[in-house]
């Protein structure tokens, strides 16, 4: 009896070892997730406009558990009082982003206050309900002049809107950031409040550029109530050139041989040729002595004959 008990106890323990105490059934039902649907717009450096929707499902309990909604069809509309004009339809990518770029030439219908109303709509499906977000922005134009004034590298920034007659109207007060492009991120060089649509500052002289000294200068306006996000970019040869430290390698295709090779070869050749010249000089001396001897012998013979 005792033996049976021991035997079954061991089996029970062994089975127990295979049971994980923290394992639960996978619960991936759509109901367990809430959906984060965000929409924003950015006026880009080439004056095109980026419409971007981020569509992410977040687990209600485990907030770190985020799943991008893939292949969700997003319709972008320019909304007016009367009608919605479809600007384009884009599906979300594997990261849950749907991006639509509208060219500079794109015409928008504005409301009475000159706002462009854009709407991003996700239509209801069997699993997910419909989502809709809107933004209202005014169009704005940036102009960045990079000039040397009295040998001082100066950045002159202008921000303006256009009225119905296409006349420039200085933009209202706003906070912008001036940055320079880098390999990984952009480095701010000036944070400024633009008043009367203009701002001017001295450009730093110690900014690293590329191999030729070219540097990208950016102006950022972020989350503005009226204008949304705006990026402007200009390229100028004001950076210090970033020369690559090229290690001189001994390759068949390298332009010149390493210096030590020239030195060694020169020493060797000079040594050898110096020896050759030394030998030849001595040969001439032998020849000279021979001639003198010959002459002396001839004179002696002549004297003897006399």
């Amino acid at each position, binding site marked *: 009896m005792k033996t049976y008990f021991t035997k079954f106890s061991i089996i029970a323990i062994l089975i127990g070892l295979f049971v994980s105490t923290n394992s639960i059934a996978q619960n991936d039902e759509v109901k367990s997730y809430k959906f984060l649907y965000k929409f924003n717009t950015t006026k880009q450096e080439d004056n095109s406009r980026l419409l971007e929707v981020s569509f992410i499902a977040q687990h209600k309990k485990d907030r770190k558990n985020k799943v991008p909604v893939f292949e969700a069809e997003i319709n972008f509309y320019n909304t007016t009082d009367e009608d919605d004009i479809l600007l384009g339809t884009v599906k979300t990518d594997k990261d849950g982003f749907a991006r639509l770029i509208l060219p500079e030439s794109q015409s928008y219908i504005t409301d009475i206050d000159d706002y462009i109303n854009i709407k991003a709509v996700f239509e209801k499906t069997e699993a997910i309900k419909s989502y809709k977000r809107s933004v209202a922005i005014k169009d704005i134009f940036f102009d960045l002049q990079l000039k040397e004034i009295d040998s001082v590298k100066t950045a002159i920034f202008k921000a303006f809107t256009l009225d119905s007659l296409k006349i420039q109207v200085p933009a209202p007060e706003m906070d912008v950031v001036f940055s320079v492009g880098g390999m990984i991120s952009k480095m701010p060089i000036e944070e400024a409040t633009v008043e009367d649509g203009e701002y001017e500052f001295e450009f730093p002289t110690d900014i690293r550029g590329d191999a030729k000294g070219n540097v990208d200068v950016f102006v950022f306006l972020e989350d503005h109530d009226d204008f949304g996000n705006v990026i402007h970019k200009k390229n100028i040869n004001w950076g210090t050139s970033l020369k690559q430290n090229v290690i001189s390698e001994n*390759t068949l295709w390298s332009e010149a041989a390493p210096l030590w*090779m020239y030195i060694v070869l020169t020493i060797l050749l000079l040594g050898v040729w110096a*020896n050759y010249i030394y030998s030849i000089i*001595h040969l001439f001396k*032998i020849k000279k*002595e021979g001639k003198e001897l010959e002459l002396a012998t001839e004179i002696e013979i002549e004297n003897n004959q006399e």
Partner: protein
Amino acid sequence: MDVTKRKRELVEEFSPLMSKTTKTSKIWMIFLGIVILVGLYAFVLQFMKGHIVTGMRDNVVWGVYIINFIFFVCLSYSGAFIGGILHFFKTPWKNSVARIVEIITVLSLIIGPIFILLCIGRLDRLHYLFMYPRIQSPITWDIIAIMTDLIGCFIYLYLTFIPDFAILRDNSEKMPKWRQKTYKYLAIGYQDTTSQRERLHKITKTMSVMIIALAIIAYSVLAWIFSLTLQPGWNSSIFAPYFIIAGLYSGVAVIIISMYLIRKFYNLDHYIRKVHFIGAGVILLVMSLLYGYFTFSEYFARWFSHKTHDVNLLDTLFTRYFWEFIFANYIGILVPIVILFFKKFRTIKSITIAAIIAVLGLWLNRYLIVVPTLETPYLPIQDTREEFIHYSATWVEWSLSFAGVAAFILFFILIMKLVPIIPMSGIIDNERNGKNLKEKRTNNSN
């Protein structure tokens, strides 16, 4: 000792060798001339039609020409090396072999580079090598080394010839006028005075040291042409010393063969004696042991490292080139060792046979260094013809190779017509030194 009388005696002794041409000699010279003419015809053909008349193709871009080049150039370097050593250390029996060695040095250094020219597909662009040299390229180093060495060898050879030219000038009354004029011009007024003799000895000794150093550098550069590439079978750190040893091995062997032929055809038994053969044989034995050791190290390291391309190369050597490999690396090394190791085998004939086997083995060894490596490239060329991958020399290449050997022998014979093969000045110096030594001993005993 009446030096003037002794000089006259020596000129009378060697004159027949220089002025008279035997029937056998004439036949030989005609035969060699024909071989050279066939070679010239082959060269014209190659020049007109290009490398298509050779066995060299896209994969195997080097063939027997480069092997002959290495062989002759190595022969020259080893000649210079041995000549320099003989002169610098005043080896007792140097007089009998010194001139043979010096002639071998210069002739092989003239003939060797001709073979590298034959490897060049576009000879019309040859001057680019000098117009646009790349100092970082081993080929440029080799050109500089060969040219510098050639000039050095010429100077050295000339220095050793001057006393004999002077002896011949002073005793050439019975010789044709052109000979008298030539000897007078080449002797540059050398009268064998004490100051002239000392001066000449000094510069010859300096040049002999320079020649040894140059030979080592030039040998190494030649080896680097191969070993500085990453090709399997070539990329080796011991290639430079390996080439030096191999060159000395072939050099000593060719000297023995030359000694045998000169001794036999010119009846110089009393100058080139058995003791010279035994001495050279012992040097050949040492060289064969060293050469065998280097060969074993080279192949053993490749086999043991087990790198894919090295294994492929060794497979090729043991299959496609099995007999060549056996002859080059077993028979070509072990047979000379066996012959030369045992005293009772050391006869003039057997030493010469050992030398012939060594020369043939070494030539094949060079072939196995060059061709199988090129036949097993890192990147195989696809969709190419079989004859483009595997190399076999054509009659054009063989006839040019034999023409090179024939030219070497013919020029050797012609130089022997100009100056005695045994330096007369050396004989006089030896007799003079022997007499001085005898006098010293007599004085000491008194």
